[in-house]
């Protein structure tokens, strides 16, 4: 739905009359790979709990978990690509030169500006809660995870 709205929005942008008015982005996926895909078929409650703990996200309810599952299935398509003998690429910048900066002091001294964003401050220190507040353990969480 949002894709259609985007296309209409694009058409509203003034473009040279010679160009086509239709967006090149298809409104729906043009093709999909077959199922089942390689990789685990289900996300376990244990893994979900770990993810929530590590990434500090909250999947909230069954719909959220389902969306996660769909996202993982979508990404699993990558496993179908044959990468034998191909060097892994870890950055599109890999053929660029890493710029080296001279060791000069050019920044800093903006305490006031930085603290402007802080909700709480104490004498030019940022204020944070004590240590890490541990998430409730898996047993204490809502039962929806166990139910799914």
């Amino acid at each position, binding site marked *: 739905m949002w894709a259609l709205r985007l296309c209409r929005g694009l058409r509203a942008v003034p473009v040279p009359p010679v160009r086509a008015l239709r967006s090149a982005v298809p409104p729906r996926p043009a093709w999909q790979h077959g199922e089942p895909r390689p990789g685990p078929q289900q996300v376990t409650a244990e893994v979900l709990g770990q993810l929530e703990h590590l990434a500090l996200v909250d999947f909230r309810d069954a719909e959220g978990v389902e969306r996660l599952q769909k996202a993982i299935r979508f990404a699993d398509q990558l496993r179908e690509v044959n990468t034998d003998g191909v060097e892994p690429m870890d950055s599109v910048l890999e053929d660029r030169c*890493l710029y*080296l900066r001279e060791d000069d002091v050019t920044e800093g001294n903006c305490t006031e500006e930085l603290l402007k964003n802080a909700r709480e401050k104490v004498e*030019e220190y940022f204020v944070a809660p004590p240590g890490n507040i541990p998430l409730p353990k898996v047993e204490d969480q809502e039962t929806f995870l166990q139910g799914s």
Partner: protein
Amino acid sequence: MKAEEAFPEQSLAPWVPVVGLEIHAQISSNSKLFSGSQVQFAAPPNSLVSFFDASLPGTLPVLNRRCVEAAVMTGLALNCSINKKSLFDRKHYFYADLPAGYQITQQRVPIAVNGSLSYSLCIDNKMSQMVTKTVRIKQIQLEQDSGKSLHDDTRSQTLIDLNRAGVGLMEVVMEPDMCCGEEAAAAVRELQLILQTLGSSQAVMAEGQLRVDANVSVHHPGEPYGVRTEVKNINSIRFLAKAVDYEIQRQIEELENGGTILNETRAFDSKLGCTVPMRDKEGKQDYRFMPEPNLPPLILYDAKSLPANMNHQQVVNIDWIHKRLPDLPSVKRAKLVEQYGILPEHSFTLLNEDGLAEFFENVVKQTQMKPKKVIGWIIKDLLSHLKQHSLTVKESPVSSFLLADLLNLLVKKDISSTAAKQVLAELWKGEGKTPLEIVKEKKLGLIQDQKELEQICQAVIDRQENEVMAIKSGNQKVLNKLIGLVQRETQGRSNAVLVRQILEKKLSE
């Protein structure tokens, strides 16, 4: 000492302690690893913080060349292979002093790998017997430091100062080749000296420029390694040895009582001299490492691979750095031993005190006394005075010139060595007098008048009839008593050798 001999009182199967160290050395540079904020200890909170250090959106890391050079120098000094291509990664975890939620480090391919560090230990606490040991260096990696948290438990809050966030660190990972606190301490001390010699880090533990975490486990010989604990909050080299030894002992006792060791992080409490659990690694901490998308690989060059038309400022040449490495401590010690004929353990003491080796060499240059004799004065007398008054060599009230002057008087036999010690104590007051002036003032000069000496000797001989008889009947040892009496008469101002000659001559008449 051998691991099995470390705890001989165990009548059960011997335990083999295994100690590995993770050392973070703060790079000595003007600005931070990825930003242009200043690096300085003790500045007003959050005054040395740029937008990137505060992790404000839209900021990007820019690598500091000096930090790369520092890591290469350190890698070369530790006999590592320098990776000409190394990569940066993100290590994710949440903590208030890590504003980005991740630390930029080098997990996959660090800048240097597979090195070694040689250090020396005294056997049986005797300085005269030293043994050389080696610990393997697994890798050296560049990474960011985090900010500082000040815990305010009364108000249930933590105050965050980001001045330290983003400062460049070299993490030196050592293989678990050590077996006790003494070895760990010696290895760290040598690393500290190397870093200070290179200038890549000032490595002052008290200022947090050198942080050591120890991984400790025990097992029986022939069995697989035991569960290890990580010990943190070690603030000095002395405490490192204590913490490691305590933890080894604790683990042995726990296991011998049928308990188990948890894979946990423990903090060293210096007041109590023990380790306490800090936080247990709930399940496993998963850092979700991923390549740092904003930084291309770091490419280093050597003389062969140097591209022709590249901007000098953008090139880090390993061979160029190698040529300019200063003499490492082990080389300096060997040179001192060879040049001055001093003992190896003396060379260790000289390098252990900042500036002492230089002081020694300056004294040798300005005096006729042989270096082998000078070293005794430096290590025994000067150093003990410095320690008594908690002074560094640079703060010494006695300059190398003054000491050389004093030693010259001794060499010329104008004073005895006891008198020389007295003069040194006077010089220490720093009242601006020369050694000669003090000698004259306190009448410490050796009696040079032969006749006067002979008179005193004769007087002693006349008084001590019993002793004279004993000597004449063959008991030569009693002569020492007579010499002692002469010394007392002259208030230490007689040359013992000369006195002996005079007495012997008189007694044989």
